[in-house]
């Protein structure tokens, strides 16, 4: 695990790490080897995702292995090499032919293959056959609309995973990425507060700044341990909903404090802080923000006999 994390950090710190991620097999950690993946547990896959969040790496890592690769492996389909993305939407499957629209598909324009959930099947589609309208999140990561005008899939297989489950998996992936980015925001803020001097001393010597940093550390730490706990039980809908809701909530606080501590220097296009805060503001809303997951949790909790046993188990 430590070696995996070290390798992931070494690669993800590079300017353009995607080719090395594919080459090293890190893009498919968590996908069984029999299906063409690199093997490893969800915790291993999360370690790589967390590192990607830490470095603010612009790579379709969650999409390739955690989402698309796993879906294909579960359906018994081989996992194609390269960048993948996964999506569900208003798509109909007639045999191998797919028609419909997918909204805000991550990395669609640069993916080698699209993995689409439709009508109880999972299908592999060449994006060259789709009409793509480019969009993006505030970090500049592609979030494209995809029209499938009667596209013949390269492979199709029955699939037990539905759109709700795909969304939950996406939410956990983004939650992991958020915690990586929050950890980096903490690191950068602590370092900057120790270096930047005003009134003859580092700004971190001011209690007001210390209090801010402690709050940042608190949010980042609690979000991190909650997400790690959810990764241990990735099929527990309460765990994933709670961990994503909390991470999304924490992301706003963390980004605001990190910028406050960095002062005006942090809001420039050159400063590294933007690589994580732009992603915090993007990822907190993707696959459901804190309000959407609160609604889902709240509906289940309200229907349960008691909110405490709902939280802790019967």
């Amino acid at each position: 695990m430590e070696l995996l994390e070290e390798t992931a950090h070494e690669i993800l710190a590079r300017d353009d790490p995607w080719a090395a991620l594919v080459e090293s097999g890190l893009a498919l950690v968590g996908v069984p080897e029999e299906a063409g993946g690199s093997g490893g547990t969800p915790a291993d896959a999360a370690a790589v995702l967390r590192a990607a969040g830490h470095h603010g790496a612009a790579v379709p890592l969650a999409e390739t292995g955690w989402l698309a690769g796993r879906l294909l492996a579960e359906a018994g389909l081989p996992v194609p090499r390269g960048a993948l993305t996964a999506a569900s939407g208003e798509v109909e499957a007639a045999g191998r032919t797919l028609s419909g629209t997918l909204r805000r598909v991550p990395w669609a324009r640069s993916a080698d293959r699209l993995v689409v959930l439709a009508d109880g099947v999972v299908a592999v589609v060449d994006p060259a056959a789709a009409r793509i309208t480019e969009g993006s999140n505030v970090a500049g990561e592609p979030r494209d609309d995809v029209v499938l005008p009667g596209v013949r899939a390269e492979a199709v297989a029955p699939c037990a995973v539905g759109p709700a489950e795909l969304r939950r998996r996406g939410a956990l992936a983004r939650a992991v990425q958020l915690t990586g980015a929050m950890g980096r925001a903490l690191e950068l803020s602590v370092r900057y507060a120790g270096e930047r001097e005003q009134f003859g001393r580092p700004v971190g010597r001011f209690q007001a700044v210390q209090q801010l940093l402690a709050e940042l550390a608190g949010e980042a730490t609690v979000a991190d341990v909650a997400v790690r706990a959810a990764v241990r039980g990735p099929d527990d809908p309460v765990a994933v909903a709670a961990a994503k809701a909390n991470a999304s909530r924490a992301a706003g606080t963390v980004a605001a404090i990190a910028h406050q501590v960095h002062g005006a220097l942090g809001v420039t296009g050159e400063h590294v802080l933007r690589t994580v805060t732009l992603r915090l503001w993007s990822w907190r809303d993707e696959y459901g923000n804190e309000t959407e997951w609160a609604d889902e949790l709240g509906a289940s909790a309200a229907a349960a006999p008691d909110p405490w046993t709902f939280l802790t188990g019967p």
Partner: protein
Amino acid sequence: MARPSDLEPGTFPPRAAELRRRVREFLAETPFTARCDSWLTGADPAFSRRLGERGWLGMTLPERYGGHGRCPLERFAVIEELLAAGAPVGAHWIADRQTGPSILAHGTEEQKARFLPAIARGECFFAIGMSEPDSGSDLASVRTRAERDGDGWRLHGTKVWTSGAHIAHAILVLARSAPRSGDRHAGLSQFIVPLPDERVAIRPILGLSGEHHFNEVVFDGAFVPDSMVLGRAGDGWRQVTAELAYERSGPERLLSTFLLVRLLHGRADGPAARRALGRLTARLWSLRQASLAVAGALEAGLTPQVPAALVKDLGTRFEREVIEVVREHAGVEPDPASPDPLARALAESVVQAPGFTLRGGTNEILRGIVARGLGVR
């Protein structure tokens, strides 16, 4: 890449589920008055003894001292069940949480044999003699002094905010046993003083709503034989700091107001109330994982000071958030005399809430500890 604030998730041992089930059964069949903040305000010695009979006090103490040889996470499961129900655990809380473990760690055989079995039976309640009129956050500045007298010490000074001293069987006092030197943490010692004592005066300090939980405890030359010094004379600061580790980040730093959520459940069921319930659930789920992780780290022999401090900071603010959110949807005004348990619990919680972020180290002091751990202080 590890930071001082990093935590690994904790895992309950398999036996915890069975314990949890038994506590729930016990709570369902045992009459008690549920209260918010019951670990401070819910003192019921008879209830404490019943918990002792069940083996739920002194759980982590060894069996030869009347304990039950359970692990800290088993105790965690039991106490969070009791707290979430608002059960009256206040009488024994301090003895069970910190004094028992402290005596086990630092006490003599005689002290262990005398106090630990009684603590585990729910027949020996302790008070904490730390804070003073001029020593709150700055605990090392305590002025209560211990003067040598024959084969013992005489205590002079005043302790305040002493929860439950009026029902406690003993108080563990932090006092200065040697004059202040360059090292302000040196020269402090802990003394066990059985109560009542004719040279110890205990007077109520009434709370906001006139309730009696706190006391002023005045020591006017109370005699403590050497056999009642806890640990080594002069080692008090180290002992007390270790004791504070038990005080922070436990489930009582998250759950003081959870009774409100339980009472609101089923009464407010619109989309807004469900969303609010979901928000609180998500936050509590996450904070509970953090609290559990700190407990796991303590059990593994680590000293997770920074995580414990930040969990208490976020946890106690969550306890207040619960009040504000439940107020929005309760549809009743806080009323301590109301027949409606929700109105009563709201009244209890709003007057207790200022204390949440003060006791056990103010949140500002705790954030200072976090900042030091981060290396900026």
